[in-house]
Protein backbone atom coordinates (compact mmCIF):
# COMPACT_ATOMS: atom_id res chain seq x y z
CA UNK A 1 0.00 0.00 0.00
CA UNK A 2 3.04 2.27 0.24
CA UNK A 3 2.38 2.90 -3.42
CA UNK A 4 -0.90 4.59 -2.51
CA UNK A 5 0.03 6.17 0.78
CA UNK A 6 3.13 7.87 -0.59
CA UNK A 7 0.92 9.70 -3.04
CA UNK A 8 -1.48 10.98 -0.40
CA UNK A 9 0.93 13.65 0.69
CA UNK A 10 0.19 17.15 1.86
CA UNK A 11 -0.57 18.29 -1.68
CA UNK A 12 -3.51 15.99 -2.23
CA UNK A 13 -5.03 15.49 1.23
CA UNK A 14 -7.86 17.81 0.36
CA UNK A 15 -8.66 15.95 -2.84
CA UNK A 16 -10.70 12.82 -2.43
CA UNK A 17 -13.50 10.50 -3.51
CA UNK A 18 -17.18 11.33 -3.78
CA UNK A 19 -20.30 9.32 -4.54
CA UNK A 20 -23.97 10.30 -4.85
CA UNK A 21 -24.12 11.08 -1.13
CA UNK A 22 -20.78 12.18 0.28
CA UNK A 23 -17.19 13.27 -0.21
CA UNK A 24 -14.22 11.93 1.73
CA UNK A 25 -10.80 13.50 1.34
CA UNK A 26 -7.68 11.35 1.20
CA UNK A 27 -6.53 12.54 4.61
CA UNK A 28 -9.75 11.19 6.14
CA UNK A 29 -9.44 7.91 4.24
CA UNK A 30 -6.25 7.22 6.18
CA UNK A 31 -8.10 8.01 9.42
CA UNK A 32 -10.82 5.53 8.39
CA UNK A 33 -8.08 2.90 8.03
CA UNK A 34 -7.04 3.53 11.64
CA UNK A 35 -10.67 3.20 12.77
CA UNK A 36 -10.98 -0.08 10.91
CA UNK A 37 -7.76 -1.33 12.51
CA UNK A 38 -9.26 -0.67 15.93
CA UNK A 39 -12.60 -2.22 14.98
CA UNK A 40 -10.99 -5.43 13.70
CA UNK A 41 -8.83 -5.62 16.82
CA UNK A 42 -11.66 -4.92 19.26
CA UNK A 43 -13.96 -7.51 17.66
CA UNK A 44 -11.13 -10.01 17.08
CA UNK A 45 -12.10 -10.30 13.44
CA UNK A 46 -9.82 -12.46 11.35
CA UNK A 47 -9.76 -13.42 7.70
CA UNK A 48 -7.67 -16.49 7.05
CA UNK A 49 -8.20 -17.07 3.34
CA UNK A 50 -10.25 -14.54 1.40
CA UNK A 51 -13.04 -12.08 2.10
CA UNK A 52 -16.11 -11.70 -0.09
CA UNK A 53 -16.83 -8.00 -0.63
CA UNK A 54 -19.84 -6.91 -2.63
CA UNK A 55 -18.63 -3.76 -4.35
CA UNK A 56 -21.04 -0.94 -5.04
CA UNK A 57 -19.85 2.40 -6.36
CA UNK A 58 -19.91 4.03 -2.95
CA UNK A 59 -17.23 5.78 -0.94
CA UNK A 60 -17.65 3.34 1.96
CA UNK A 61 -17.09 0.36 -0.32
CA UNK A 62 -14.01 1.97 -1.79
CA UNK A 63 -12.56 2.66 1.68
CA UNK A 64 -13.08 -0.97 2.74
CA UNK A 65 -11.58 -2.23 -0.50
CA UNK A 66 -8.49 -0.02 -0.14
CA UNK A 67 -8.18 -1.06 3.48
CA UNK A 68 -8.01 -4.74 2.51
CA UNK A 69 -5.49 -3.94 -0.22
CA UNK A 70 -3.36 -2.11 2.36
CA UNK A 71 -3.50 -5.05 4.78
CA UNK A 72 -2.68 -7.52 2.01
CA UNK A 73 -5.88 -9.41 2.77
CA UNK A 74 -7.07 -11.58 -0.12
CA UNK A 75 -10.31 -10.08 -1.34
CA UNK A 76 -12.90 -11.13 -3.91
CA UNK A 77 -14.53 -8.07 -5.45
CA UNK A 78 -18.06 -9.25 -6.16
CA UNK A 79 -20.72 -7.58 -8.29
CA UNK A 80 -23.63 -6.02 -6.41
CA UNK A 81 -26.43 -8.46 -5.50
CA UNK A 82 -24.23 -11.56 -5.81
CA UNK A 83 -24.73 -12.22 -2.11
CA UNK A 84 -28.52 -12.30 -2.49
CA UNK A 85 -28.24 -14.75 -5.36
CA UNK A 86 -26.32 -17.11 -3.07
CA UNK A 87 -23.36 -17.28 -5.43
CA UNK A 88 -20.60 -16.79 -2.87
CA UNK A 89 -17.61 -18.79 -4.14
CA UNK A 90 -16.21 -21.51 -1.90
CA UNK A 91 -12.73 -19.94 -1.71
CA UNK A 92 -14.02 -17.10 0.51
CA UNK A 93 -13.99 -17.94 4.22
CA UNK A 94 -15.63 -14.67 5.27
CA UNK A 95 -18.33 -12.39 3.92
CA UNK A 96 -18.11 -8.71 4.69
CA UNK A 97 -21.43 -6.93 5.04
CA UNK A 98 -21.33 -3.17 4.92
CA UNK A 99 -24.13 -1.42 6.78
CA UNK A 100 -25.37 2.15 6.65
CA UNK A 101 -23.38 4.50 8.87
CA UNK A 102 -24.90 5.18 12.28
CA UNK A 103 -24.96 8.50 14.15
CA UNK A 104 -21.30 8.18 15.10
CA UNK A 105 -20.50 8.42 11.38
CA UNK A 106 -18.04 5.55 11.52
CA UNK A 107 -18.06 2.69 9.05
CA UNK A 108 -20.35 -0.14 10.14
CA UNK A 109 -19.30 -3.60 9.10
CA UNK A 110 -20.16 -7.17 9.94
CA UNK A 111 -18.03 -10.18 9.15
CA UNK A 112 -19.98 -13.39 8.56
CA UNK A 113 -18.80 -16.94 7.95
CA UNK A 114 -19.28 -18.31 4.44
CA UNK A 115 -21.27 -21.52 4.89
CA UNK A 116 -20.10 -22.64 1.41
CA UNK A 117 -16.43 -22.28 2.32
CA UNK A 118 -14.40 -25.11 0.81
CA UNK A 119 -10.81 -25.26 1.93
CA UNK A 120 -9.25 -27.09 -0.97
CA UNK A 121 -7.91 -24.30 -3.11
CA UNK A 122 -4.61 -22.76 -4.10
CA UNK A 123 -5.01 -19.60 -2.02
CA UNK A 124 -3.11 -21.03 0.93
CA UNK A 125 -0.06 -18.99 2.00
CA UNK A 126 -0.83 -16.30 -0.56
CA UNK A 127 -1.63 -12.81 0.61
CA UNK A 128 -2.30 -9.53 -1.13
CA UNK A 129 -4.39 -11.14 -3.86
CA UNK A 130 -7.36 -9.54 -5.56
CA UNK A 131 -9.92 -11.75 -7.26
CA UNK A 132 -12.38 -10.53 -9.88
CA UNK A 133 -15.27 -12.35 -11.53
CA UNK A 134 -14.87 -13.11 -15.20
CA UNK A 135 -17.50 -11.20 -17.14
CA UNK A 136 -19.82 -12.71 -19.66
CA UNK A 137 -19.38 -16.43 -19.22
CA UNK A 138 -22.62 -18.25 -18.59
CA UNK A 139 -20.83 -21.59 -18.23
CA UNK A 140 -18.99 -22.69 -15.04
CA UNK A 141 -17.75 -19.56 -13.25
CA UNK A 142 -14.08 -18.69 -13.41
CA UNK A 143 -12.32 -16.13 -11.27
CA UNK A 144 -9.47 -13.84 -12.22
CA UNK A 145 -6.60 -13.93 -9.77
CA UNK A 146 -4.41 -10.81 -9.51
CA UNK A 147 -1.53 -9.82 -7.28
CA UNK A 148 -2.59 -6.50 -5.73
CA UNK A 149 0.88 -5.09 -6.46
CA UNK A 150 0.39 -5.83 -10.15
CA UNK A 151 -3.01 -4.17 -10.03
CA UNK A 152 -1.28 -1.01 -8.74
CA UNK A 153 1.43 -1.20 -11.40
CA UNK A 154 -1.27 -1.72 -14.02
CA UNK A 155 -3.02 1.39 -12.71
CA UNK A 156 0.26 3.34 -12.73
CA UNK A 157 0.57 2.62 -16.46
CA UNK A 158 -2.92 4.10 -16.92
CA UNK A 159 -1.95 7.24 -14.98
CA UNK A 160 0.87 7.76 -17.45
CA UNK A 161 -1.14 6.83 -20.54
CA UNK A 162 -4.12 9.09 -19.75
CA UNK A 163 -2.07 11.91 -18.16
CA UNK A 164 -3.97 11.70 -14.87
CA UNK A 165 -2.64 14.01 -12.16
CA UNK A 166 -3.65 15.45 -8.80
CA UNK A 167 -5.28 18.27 -10.75
CA UNK A 168 -7.52 15.86 -12.66
CA UNK A 169 -11.21 15.33 -12.00
CA UNK A 170 -12.13 11.79 -12.90
CA UNK A 171 -15.71 10.58 -13.19
CA UNK A 172 -16.32 6.83 -13.03
CA UNK A 173 -19.82 5.92 -14.18
CA UNK A 174 -19.01 2.22 -14.66
CA UNK A 175 -18.88 -0.41 -11.87
CA UNK A 176 -15.64 -0.42 -9.87
CA UNK A 177 -15.99 -4.14 -9.18
CA UNK A 178 -14.80 -4.73 -12.76
CA UNK A 179 -11.32 -4.16 -14.11
CA UNK A 180 -12.37 -1.25 -16.34
CA UNK A 181 -13.82 0.86 -13.53
CA UNK A 182 -11.23 -0.30 -11.00
CA UNK A 183 -8.02 -0.52 -12.99
CA UNK A 184 -8.53 2.31 -15.46
CA UNK A 185 -10.63 4.70 -13.35
CA UNK A 186 -10.71 4.34 -9.59
CA UNK A 187 -7.19 3.15 -8.77
CA UNK A 188 -5.32 5.44 -11.20
CA UNK A 189 -7.42 8.38 -9.97
CA UNK A 190 -6.70 7.66 -6.31
CA UNK A 191 -3.03 6.87 -6.87
CA UNK A 192 -2.58 10.13 -8.78
CA UNK A 193 -4.30 11.99 -5.94
CA UNK A 194 -7.00 13.24 -8.31
CA UNK A 195 -10.53 14.09 -7.33
CA UNK A 196 -12.58 11.01 -8.18
CA UNK A 197 -16.34 10.81 -8.38
CA UNK A 198 -18.14 7.47 -8.68
CA UNK A 199 -21.76 6.93 -9.69
CA UNK A 200 -23.66 4.12 -7.99
CA UNK A 201 -26.30 2.23 -10.00
CA UNK A 202 -25.48 4.48 -12.88
CA UNK A 203 -27.94 5.58 -15.50
CA UNK A 204 -27.76 8.22 -18.17
CA UNK A 205 -29.66 10.82 -16.12
CA UNK A 206 -27.33 10.39 -13.15
CA UNK A 207 -24.45 10.71 -15.60
CA UNK A 208 -25.73 14.01 -17.02
CA UNK A 209 -26.41 15.23 -13.47
CA UNK A 210 -22.83 14.43 -12.46
CA UNK A 211 -21.28 15.86 -15.62
CA UNK A 212 -23.01 19.14 -14.81
CA UNK A 213 -22.22 19.16 -11.07
CA UNK A 214 -18.75 17.58 -10.87
CA UNK A 215 -17.40 19.00 -14.16
CA UNK A 216 -14.87 16.21 -14.79
CA UNK A 217 -12.01 16.45 -17.24
CA UNK A 218 -12.01 12.68 -17.81
CA UNK A 219 -15.11 10.43 -17.69
CA UNK A 220 -15.26 6.66 -17.93
CA UNK A 221 -18.44 5.59 -19.64
CA UNK A 222 -19.67 2.64 -21.65
CA UNK A 223 -20.69 2.59 -25.33
CA UNK A 224 -24.38 2.28 -24.39
CA UNK A 225 -24.18 5.61 -22.53
CA UNK A 226 -22.38 7.15 -25.53
CA UNK A 227 -25.25 6.08 -27.77
CA UNK A 228 -27.87 7.27 -25.27
CA UNK A 229 -26.24 10.69 -25.04
CA UNK A 230 -26.37 10.87 -28.82
CA UNK A 231 -30.00 9.72 -28.90
CA UNK A 232 -30.94 12.43 -26.40
CA UNK A 233 -29.55 14.99 -28.82
CA UNK A 234 -28.70 17.47 -26.07
CA UNK A 235 -25.83 19.90 -25.87
CA UNK A 236 -23.88 19.77 -22.62
CA UNK A 237 -22.28 22.95 -21.37
CA UNK A 238 -18.84 21.43 -20.79
CA UNK A 239 -16.73 19.48 -23.25
CA UNK A 240 -14.10 17.07 -21.92
CA UNK A 241 -12.44 13.72 -22.54
CA UNK A 242 -14.43 10.47 -22.39
CA UNK A 243 -12.99 6.97 -22.24
CA UNK A 244 -15.21 4.17 -23.50
CA UNK A 245 -14.47 0.44 -23.30
CA UNK A 246 -16.17 -2.46 -24.98
CA UNK A 247 -17.71 -2.29 -28.42
CA UNK A 248 -15.89 0.73 -29.93
CA UNK A 249 -17.89 3.65 -31.19
CA UNK A 250 -16.61 4.31 -34.67
CA UNK A 251 -17.38 6.08 -37.92
CA UNK A 252 -20.11 8.71 -37.91
CA UNK A 253 -21.24 7.96 -34.36
CA UNK A 254 -17.78 8.66 -32.98
CA UNK A 255 -17.43 11.86 -35.00
CA UNK A 256 -20.87 13.01 -33.88
CA UNK A 257 -20.03 12.23 -30.25
CA UNK A 258 -16.72 14.12 -30.42
CA UNK A 259 -18.34 17.14 -32.07
CA UNK A 260 -21.08 17.30 -29.47
CA UNK A 261 -19.54 16.17 -26.19
CA UNK A 262 -15.73 16.10 -26.41
CA UNK A 263 -12.83 13.81 -27.25
CA UNK A 264 -13.67 10.10 -27.13
CA UNK A 265 -10.93 7.56 -26.44
CA UNK A 266 -11.77 3.97 -27.38
CA UNK A 267 -10.15 1.60 -24.91
CA UNK A 268 -9.13 -1.95 -25.78
CA UNK A 269 -8.72 -4.05 -22.68
CA UNK A 270 -9.94 -7.04 -20.74
CA UNK A 271 -10.47 -8.09 -17.14
CA UNK A 272 -7.43 -10.36 -17.28
CA UNK A 273 -4.86 -7.77 -18.40
CA UNK A 274 -6.48 -4.38 -17.80
CA UNK A 275 -6.03 -1.57 -20.30
CA UNK A 276 -4.07 -2.88 -23.30
CA UNK A 277 -4.31 -0.14 -25.94
CA UNK A 278 -6.33 2.95 -26.80
CA UNK A 279 -7.11 5.23 -29.67
CA UNK A 280 -5.14 8.49 -29.56
CA UNK A 281 -5.30 10.13 -26.14
CA UNK A 282 -4.13 13.55 -27.22
CA UNK A 283 -6.69 15.78 -28.90
CA UNK A 284 -4.00 17.24 -31.14
CA UNK A 285 -3.65 13.97 -33.00
CA UNK A 286 -7.29 13.26 -33.61
CA UNK A 287 -7.21 14.42 -37.23
CA UNK A 288 -4.19 12.40 -38.33
CA UNK A 289 -4.54 9.34 -36.12
CA UNK A 290 -6.91 6.68 -37.42
CA UNK A 291 -9.76 5.98 -35.00
CA UNK A 292 -9.17 2.25 -35.43
CA UNK A 293 -5.44 2.41 -34.77
CA UNK A 294 -4.74 1.61 -31.12
CA UNK A 295 -1.60 2.64 -29.28
CA UNK A 296 -0.36 0.12 -26.68
CA UNK A 297 -0.38 1.17 -23.04
CA UNK A 298 3.15 1.41 -21.62
CA UNK A 299 4.65 -2.05 -21.04
CA UNK A 300 2.04 -3.90 -23.08
CA UNK A 301 3.23 -5.92 -26.07
CA UNK A 302 1.26 -7.46 -28.92
CA UNK A 303 1.96 -10.05 -31.56
CA UNK A 304 -0.18 -11.76 -34.15
CA UNK A 305 -0.52 -15.52 -34.39
CA UNK A 306 -1.56 -16.62 -37.87
CA UNK A 307 -3.32 -19.94 -38.21
CA UNK A 308 -4.98 -20.58 -41.58
CA UNK A 309 -7.15 -17.53 -42.22
CA UNK A 310 -7.16 -16.37 -38.63
CA UNK A 311 -4.85 -13.67 -37.22
CA UNK A 312 -5.24 -13.81 -33.48
CA UNK A 313 -3.94 -11.02 -31.26
CA UNK A 314 -1.68 -12.27 -28.48
CA UNK A 315 -0.84 -9.87 -25.69
CA UNK A 316 1.70 -9.65 -22.90
CA UNK A 317 1.23 -7.30 -19.95
CA UNK A 318 3.77 -7.75 -17.13
CA UNK A 319 1.11 -6.53 -14.69
CA UNK A 320 -1.74 -8.74 -15.80
CA UNK A 321 -3.53 -11.48 -13.86
CA UNK A 322 -1.88 -14.67 -12.60
CA UNK A 323 -4.38 -17.37 -13.58
CA UNK A 324 -8.03 -18.43 -13.44
CA UNK A 325 -9.43 -19.98 -10.27
CA UNK A 326 -12.49 -22.16 -10.05
CA UNK A 327 -15.17 -21.53 -7.42
CA UNK A 328 -13.30 -23.68 -4.90
CA UNK A 329 -10.11 -21.66 -5.29
CA UNK A 330 -8.29 -24.28 -7.34
CA UNK A 331 -6.20 -23.19 -10.28
CA UNK A 332 -8.14 -24.16 -13.39
CA UNK A 333 -6.41 -26.47 -15.85
CA UNK A 334 -7.55 -24.49 -18.86
CA UNK A 335 -5.60 -21.20 -18.89
CA UNK A 336 -5.64 -18.68 -21.77
CA UNK A 337 -1.89 -18.51 -22.33
CA UNK A 338 0.43 -19.66 -25.09
CA UNK A 339 4.15 -19.44 -24.31
CA UNK A 340 3.42 -16.72 -21.75
CA UNK A 341 1.28 -14.70 -24.16
CA UNK A 342 -2.39 -14.11 -23.38
CA UNK A 343 -4.75 -15.33 -26.09
CA UNK A 344 -7.26 -12.55 -26.65
CA UNK A 345 -9.32 -14.51 -29.22
CA UNK A 346 -9.59 -11.21 -31.07
CA UNK A 347 -8.44 -10.96 -34.66
CA UNK A 348 -6.29 -8.05 -35.74
CA UNK A 349 -3.14 -6.68 -37.31
CA UNK A 350 -0.17 -4.56 -36.22
CA UNK A 351 1.08 -1.68 -38.39
CA UNK A 352 4.68 -0.52 -38.92
CA UNK A 353 4.47 1.87 -35.94
CA UNK A 354 3.50 -0.99 -33.63
CA UNK A 355 -0.10 0.19 -33.37
CA UNK A 356 -2.86 -2.35 -33.26
CA UNK A 357 -6.08 -2.68 -35.19
CA UNK A 358 -8.76 -5.05 -33.90
CA UNK A 359 -10.93 -6.43 -36.69
CA UNK A 360 -13.22 -8.91 -34.91
CA UNK A 361 -13.27 -12.18 -33.03
CA UNK A 362 -11.77 -15.52 -33.96
CA UNK A 363 -14.48 -17.33 -31.98
CA UNK A 364 -18.23 -16.93 -31.78
CA UNK A 365 -18.29 -14.22 -29.13
CA UNK A 366 -20.11 -10.92 -29.20
CA UNK A 367 -20.10 -7.90 -26.92
CA UNK A 368 -23.42 -7.34 -25.14
CA UNK A 369 -23.70 -4.42 -22.72
CA UNK A 370 -20.00 -4.72 -21.96
CA UNK A 371 -20.12 -8.48 -21.43
CA UNK A 372 -18.34 -10.86 -23.75
CA UNK A 373 -20.96 -13.44 -24.59
CA UNK A 374 -20.04 -16.77 -26.15
CA UNK A 375 -22.76 -17.70 -28.62
CA UNK A 376 -21.81 -21.35 -28.41
CA UNK A 377 -22.26 -21.33 -24.61
CA UNK A 378 -25.54 -19.49 -25.01
CA UNK A 379 -26.88 -21.96 -27.57
CA UNK A 380 -26.23 -24.88 -25.22
CA UNK A 381 -28.06 -23.03 -22.43
CA UNK A 382 -30.99 -22.14 -24.70
CA UNK A 383 -31.35 -25.71 -25.94
CA UNK A 384 -31.58 -26.85 -22.31
CA UNK A 385 -34.12 -24.18 -21.43
CA UNK A 386 -36.36 -24.38 -24.50
CA UNK A 387 -37.06 -28.08 -24.63
CA UNK A 388 -39.35 -27.86 -27.67
CA UNK A 389 -36.39 -26.72 -29.74
CA UNK A 390 -34.25 -29.29 -31.46
CA UNK A 391 -31.40 -26.95 -32.39
CA UNK A 392 -30.81 -23.27 -31.72
CA UNK A 393 -28.41 -20.94 -33.49
CA UNK A 394 -27.85 -17.38 -32.29
CA UNK A 395 -26.59 -14.61 -34.54
CA UNK A 396 -25.93 -10.93 -34.15
CA UNK A 397 -27.89 -8.82 -36.61
CA UNK A 398 -26.49 -5.80 -38.45
CA UNK A 399 -28.20 -3.59 -35.86
CA UNK A 400 -26.27 -5.45 -33.12
CA UNK A 401 -29.35 -7.26 -31.84
CA UNK A 402 -29.29 -10.90 -30.82
CA UNK A 403 -31.51 -13.25 -32.80
CA UNK A 404 -32.19 -16.85 -31.78
CA UNK A 405 -33.19 -19.11 -34.66
CA UNK A 406 -34.94 -22.15 -33.22
CA UNK A 407 -35.45 -25.37 -35.10
CA UNK A 408 -38.51 -26.93 -33.44
CA UNK A 409 -39.03 -30.60 -32.68
CA UNK A 410 -41.64 -32.25 -34.88
CA UNK A 411 -45.23 -31.47 -33.77
CA UNK A 412 -44.06 -28.96 -31.15
CA UNK A 413 -44.67 -25.23 -31.09
CA UNK A 414 -43.12 -22.34 -29.24
CA UNK A 415 -43.87 -18.64 -29.23
CA UNK A 416 -41.65 -15.62 -28.72
CA UNK A 417 -43.33 -14.47 -25.52
CA UNK A 418 -42.92 -17.75 -23.63
CA UNK A 419 -39.40 -18.28 -24.99
CA UNK A 420 -38.34 -14.80 -23.91
CA UNK A 421 -39.95 -15.14 -20.47
CA UNK A 422 -38.17 -18.45 -19.89
CA UNK A 423 -34.88 -16.81 -20.83
CA UNK A 424 -35.51 -13.77 -18.63
CA UNK A 425 -36.10 -16.08 -15.66
CA UNK A 426 -32.96 -18.14 -16.23
CA UNK A 427 -30.32 -16.01 -17.92
CA UNK A 428 -28.64 -12.70 -17.22
CA UNK A 429 -30.33 -9.89 -19.12
CA UNK A 430 -27.42 -9.42 -21.55
CA UNK A 431 -27.72 -13.07 -22.64
CA UNK A 432 -31.45 -12.94 -23.46
CA UNK A 433 -32.02 -12.82 -27.24
CA UNK A 434 -33.82 -9.73 -28.50
CA UNK A 435 -35.72 -11.73 -31.11
CA UNK A 436 -36.71 -15.33 -31.77
CA UNK A 437 -37.44 -16.99 -35.08
CA UNK A 438 -39.00 -20.45 -35.21
CA UNK A 439 -38.44 -22.76 -38.12
CA UNK A 440 -38.91 -26.41 -39.07
CA UNK A 441 -35.32 -26.79 -40.21
CA UNK A 442 -32.07 -24.88 -39.94
CA UNK A 443 -29.78 -25.03 -43.00
CA UNK A 444 -26.78 -27.26 -42.32
CA UNK A 445 -23.33 -27.83 -43.72
CA UNK A 446 -22.21 -31.17 -45.15
CA UNK A 447 -20.81 -32.13 -41.72
CA UNK A 448 -24.18 -31.55 -40.07
CA UNK A 449 -23.24 -28.31 -38.30
CA UNK A 450 -25.53 -25.30 -38.75
CA UNK A 451 -24.61 -23.16 -41.74
CA UNK A 452 -24.01 -19.89 -39.87
CA UNK A 453 -23.00 -17.98 -42.99
CA UNK A 454 -26.27 -18.81 -44.72
CA UNK A 455 -28.28 -18.08 -41.57
CA UNK A 456 -26.57 -14.71 -41.21
CA UNK A 457 -27.33 -13.97 -44.86
CA UNK A 458 -30.96 -15.08 -44.49
CA UNK A 459 -31.77 -13.32 -41.24
CA UNK A 460 -29.74 -10.10 -41.17
Amino acid sequence: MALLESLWDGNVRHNGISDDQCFVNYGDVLKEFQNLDQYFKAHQLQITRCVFLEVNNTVDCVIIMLYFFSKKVNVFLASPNLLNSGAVPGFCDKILILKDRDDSSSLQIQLAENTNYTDKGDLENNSGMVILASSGSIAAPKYIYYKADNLFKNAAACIQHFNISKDSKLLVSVPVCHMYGLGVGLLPGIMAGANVSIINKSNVIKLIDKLRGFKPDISLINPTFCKMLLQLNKTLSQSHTYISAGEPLDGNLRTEFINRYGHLINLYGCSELGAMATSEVSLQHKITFSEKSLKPVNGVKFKIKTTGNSNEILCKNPYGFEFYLDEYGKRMTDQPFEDGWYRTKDAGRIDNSGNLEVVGRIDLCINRSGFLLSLEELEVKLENLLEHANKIVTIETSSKELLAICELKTDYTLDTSSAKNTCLRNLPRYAVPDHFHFTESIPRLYNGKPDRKQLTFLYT
Partner: protein
Amino acid sequence: MIDNISKDSIKSKIKEVLVDDLDANLNVGDLKDDLSLYEDGIGLDSISIVNLIVLVEQKFSINFEEEDLSYDLFSSINHLADVIYTKIN
Protein backbone atom coordinates in the same frame (compact mmCIF):
# COMPACT_ATOMS: atom_id res chain seq x y z
CA MET B 1 -47.77 23.78 -28.84
CA ILE B 2 -50.17 22.43 -26.24
CA ASP B 3 -52.22 25.06 -24.41
CA ASN B 4 -54.29 24.99 -21.22
CA ILE B 5 -53.58 21.43 -20.25
CA SER B 6 -54.16 20.47 -16.63
CA LYS B 7 -51.66 18.58 -14.49
CA ASP B 8 -54.06 15.64 -14.33
CA SER B 9 -54.21 15.48 -18.13
CA ILE B 10 -50.42 15.61 -18.24
CA LYS B 11 -50.20 12.71 -15.78
CA SER B 12 -52.69 10.68 -17.84
CA LYS B 13 -50.73 11.35 -20.98
CA ILE B 14 -47.43 10.36 -19.30
CA LYS B 15 -49.08 7.10 -18.23
CA GLU B 16 -50.30 6.51 -21.78
CA VAL B 17 -46.75 6.92 -23.05
CA LEU B 18 -45.40 4.58 -20.38
CA VAL B 19 -47.94 1.86 -21.11
CA ASP B 20 -48.42 2.16 -24.88
CA ASP B 21 -45.18 3.53 -26.30
CA LEU B 22 -42.43 2.11 -24.13
CA ASP B 23 -41.42 -1.51 -24.46
CA ALA B 24 -41.46 -1.83 -20.65
CA ASN B 25 -44.35 -4.24 -20.03
CA LEU B 26 -46.29 -1.87 -17.74
CA ASN B 27 -49.98 -1.66 -16.83
CA VAL B 28 -51.81 1.52 -15.85
CA GLY B 29 -52.58 -0.12 -12.49
CA ASP B 30 -48.83 -0.26 -11.73
CA LEU B 31 -48.38 3.46 -12.18
CA LYS B 32 -48.80 5.34 -8.92
CA ASP B 33 -48.26 9.09 -9.18
CA ASP B 34 -45.71 9.24 -6.37
CA LEU B 35 -43.66 6.20 -7.38
CA SER B 36 -40.12 6.65 -8.75
CA LEU B 37 -39.79 5.85 -12.44
CA TYR B 38 -36.37 4.27 -11.89
CA GLU B 39 -35.55 0.68 -11.02
CA ASP B 40 -36.42 1.26 -7.36
CA GLY B 41 -40.00 2.12 -8.39
CA ILE B 42 -41.72 1.54 -11.70
CA GLY B 43 -38.56 -0.09 -12.97
CA LEU B 44 -37.44 1.83 -16.04
CA ASP B 45 -33.86 1.16 -17.09
CA SER B 46 -31.57 3.68 -18.77
CA ILE B 47 -32.74 2.84 -22.29
CA SER B 48 -36.41 3.24 -21.32
CA ILE B 49 -35.67 6.56 -19.60
CA VAL B 50 -33.96 7.88 -22.74
CA ASN B 51 -36.91 6.73 -24.87
CA LEU B 52 -39.30 8.35 -22.40
CA ILE B 53 -37.48 11.69 -22.64
CA VAL B 54 -37.64 11.61 -26.44
CA LEU B 55 -41.34 10.62 -26.43
CA VAL B 56 -42.35 13.19 -23.82
CA GLU B 57 -40.60 15.92 -25.80
CA GLN B 58 -42.50 14.86 -28.92
CA LYS B 59 -45.93 14.40 -27.30
CA PHE B 60 -45.86 17.66 -25.34
CA SER B 61 -43.87 19.66 -27.92
CA ILE B 62 -41.32 20.68 -25.34
CA ASN B 63 -37.55 20.50 -25.06
CA PHE B 64 -35.75 19.47 -21.89
CA GLU B 65 -32.63 21.57 -21.33
CA GLU B 66 -29.43 20.18 -19.81
CA GLU B 67 -30.37 21.54 -16.38
CA ASP B 68 -33.80 19.85 -16.55
CA LEU B 69 -32.21 16.43 -16.93
CA SER B 70 -31.53 15.81 -13.27
CA TYR B 71 -32.12 12.63 -11.32
CA ASP B 72 -35.13 14.30 -9.67
CA LEU B 73 -36.95 14.68 -12.99
CA PHE B 74 -38.02 11.05 -12.90
CA SER B 75 -38.38 10.76 -9.13
CA SER B 76 -42.16 10.46 -9.67
CA ILE B 77 -44.88 10.97 -12.27
CA ASN B 78 -46.01 13.90 -10.12
CA HIS B 79 -42.65 15.62 -10.43
CA LEU B 80 -42.33 14.93 -14.14
CA ALA B 81 -45.83 16.33 -14.66
CA ASP B 82 -44.90 19.48 -12.69
CA VAL B 83 -41.87 20.10 -14.90
CA ILE B 84 -43.86 19.52 -18.09
CA TYR B 85 -46.66 21.79 -16.80
CA THR B 86 -44.17 24.58 -16.11
CA LYS B 87 -42.64 24.22 -19.55
CA ILE B 88 -45.98 24.24 -21.35
CA ASN B 89 -47.25 27.21 -19.41
